[in-house]
């Protein structure tokens, strides 16, 4: 605890000294009477000033919350000596706001008193947050001395993005071997009717299509599509983002990633994550709700880290990109390194779809002049970039802040259904 004198101490001491000296020089008792109150205050204040002793703890009822949730927090104080005036401020990280309660606050504690300050925090923004430190400043009763300290609360709070519920996820071109909800293009044991073929030795009798056989005078069997699961890799571009105020393209990408991961995990698909940016993070594909939490936890740590290092997809561990996996990229298409990586993925035969998290809503077109021309050229280049990806057979759909994700995925689905590679 650091002790310091307030300006009031110096002021009162100076007034007392000057007053008494003046009284002596001019031999006037009235001047002593003018000075005595200040001398008395000084003496009383210093006599009452004892170093405060207390403990502070910050507690959260829950360390996990969804974006927009309100969660209670407590600051527990226990004083062993009287604390006449205590200024207390719990520093809240960006992304967590005070919804209710007093922070900063000023209070008084008696010796041996325990006090709990109830705060209601609003998890305003997704991410991994750390509450604290707690800044404390205690005063003596008359405010001549202060004792300042800082207590590291280190309460971690993980705020998960509140995602859209997707009605339908994208279907990959190829499925995996395990059972799942996706109707495979291949033929095998399943429910979905695929085709008819002539009976062959070894075919089970229950697969004979008796109607077709009766019509054609020969034995025919029904073939079906098996239901398989898929591998989905969510590729988050963390090289660059456009941001305005408290919202940016990375926030949108994180929310979309969480929504897509939730949709695929619900279909018993394996979901993996690649955060491709200044810091490369990856998560090998996995199944189940635990994997969903792993994906979202990994997302919380995703941030834009400035880097000039040219990264290619070779840096991604091989097992993170299994063959036949559907790669869904969420990118603002701002950094040529991420665009290059996407084209590279496509060139290597990966099934790729791109959700272009548009940076346009986070920018303002200048009124006129060279700036306006530069802005228009930049917008045209972005369009050209999207067409380059589409020419490579990559479905690209633009997603703007404020709109829902499902129509964007439907646009990607429509492109993938109808697009064919042009032969020239």
């Amino acid at each position, binding site marked *: 605890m650091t002790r310091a004198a307030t300006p009031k101490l110096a002021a009162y001491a100076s007034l007392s000294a000057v007053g008494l000296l003046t009284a*002596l020089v001019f031999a*006037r008792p009235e001047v002593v009477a003018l000075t005595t*109150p200040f001398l008395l205050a000084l*003496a009383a204040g210093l006599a009452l000033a004892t170093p405060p002793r207390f403990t502070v703890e910050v507690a959260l009822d829950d360390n996990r919350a969804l974006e927009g949730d309100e969660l209670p927090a407590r600051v527990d104080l226990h004083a062993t000596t009287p604390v006449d005036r205590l200024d207390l401020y719990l520093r809240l990280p960006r992304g967590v706001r005070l919804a209710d309660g007093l922070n*900063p606050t000023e209070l*008084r504690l008696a010796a041996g008193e325990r006090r709990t300050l109830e705060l209601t925090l609003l998890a305003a923004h997704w991410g991994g947050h750390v509450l604290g430190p707690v800044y404390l400043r205690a005063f003596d009763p008359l405010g001549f001395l202060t004792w300042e300290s800082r207590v590291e609360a280190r309460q971690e709070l993980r705020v998960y993005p509140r995602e859209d519920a997707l009605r339908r996820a994208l279907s990959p071109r190829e499925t995996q071997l395990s059972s799942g909800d996706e109707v495979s293009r291949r033929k095998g044991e399943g429910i979905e009717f695929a085709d008819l073929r002539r009976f062959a030795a070894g075919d089970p009798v229950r697969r004979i299509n008796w109607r077709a056989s009766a019509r054609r005078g020969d034995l025919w069997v029904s073939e079906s599509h098996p239901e398989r699961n898929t591998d989905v890799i969510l590729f988050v571009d963390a090289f660059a983002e456009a941001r305005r105020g408290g919202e940016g393209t990375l926030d949108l990408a994180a929310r979309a990633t969480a929504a897509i991961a939730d949709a695929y995990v619900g279909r018993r698909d394996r979901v993996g994550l690649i955060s491709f940016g200044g810091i490369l993070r990856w998560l090998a594909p996995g199944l189940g709700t635990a994997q969903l939490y792993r994906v979202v936890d990994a997302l919380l740590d995703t941030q834009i880290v400035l880097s000039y290092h040219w990264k290619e997809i070779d840096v991604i561990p091989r097992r993170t990109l299994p063959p036949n996996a559907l790669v869904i990229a969420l990118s603002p298409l701002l950094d040529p390194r991420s665009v290059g990586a996407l084209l590279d993925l496509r060139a290597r035969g990966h099934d790729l779809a791109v959700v272009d998290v548009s940076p346009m809503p986070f920018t303002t077109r200048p009124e006129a002049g060279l700036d306006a021309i530069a802005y228009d050229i930049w917008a045209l280049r972005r369009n050209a970039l999207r067409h380059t990806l589409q020419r490579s057979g990559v479905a690209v759909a633009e997603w703007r802040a404020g709109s829902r994700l499902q129509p964007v995925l439907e646009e990607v689905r429509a492109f993938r259904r109808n697009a064919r590679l042009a032969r020239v």
Partner: protein
Amino acid sequence: MHGGDLVAPVAMVAALAAVVLLAGLVRRRSLAIPWSVLLTAAAYVIGREGSSVVDGGAAIVGALLLLSAELATWSIEHDARIEPEPRLVAWRAGVIGALVACALLVNFLLLGAAAVSASTGLVVAAAGVVAAVAAVAIVLRLLRAT
């Protein structure tokens, strides 16, 4: 100088004290408080120029000076972002009230003693003040310790 001649300088110094205090409050400068107190005290002393009788009103003026200094300090220290507990505000007001009342009492005792034993001289009177104040401080300290 006659009493009438002193009105203008007293008013001028008092007005200056008020301006200094006001400026300090507006600009949140605590340095203005002692200067304002000094100027007010100077105005009072100038006003008493030529009078040989010990003025009992000095006890009240001294206590009021302390009150104004305490309230001005409170005002300058006040940070609108820090929400104080209501009972702390009441406690702080009580502390200031008690301090001013105590100062008033000590002042009356002092001026009474000075009027009775003016012959003992001001040095002894000042020593008496310091002793009284020290006694109060020791009592407070002991009370605090228990």
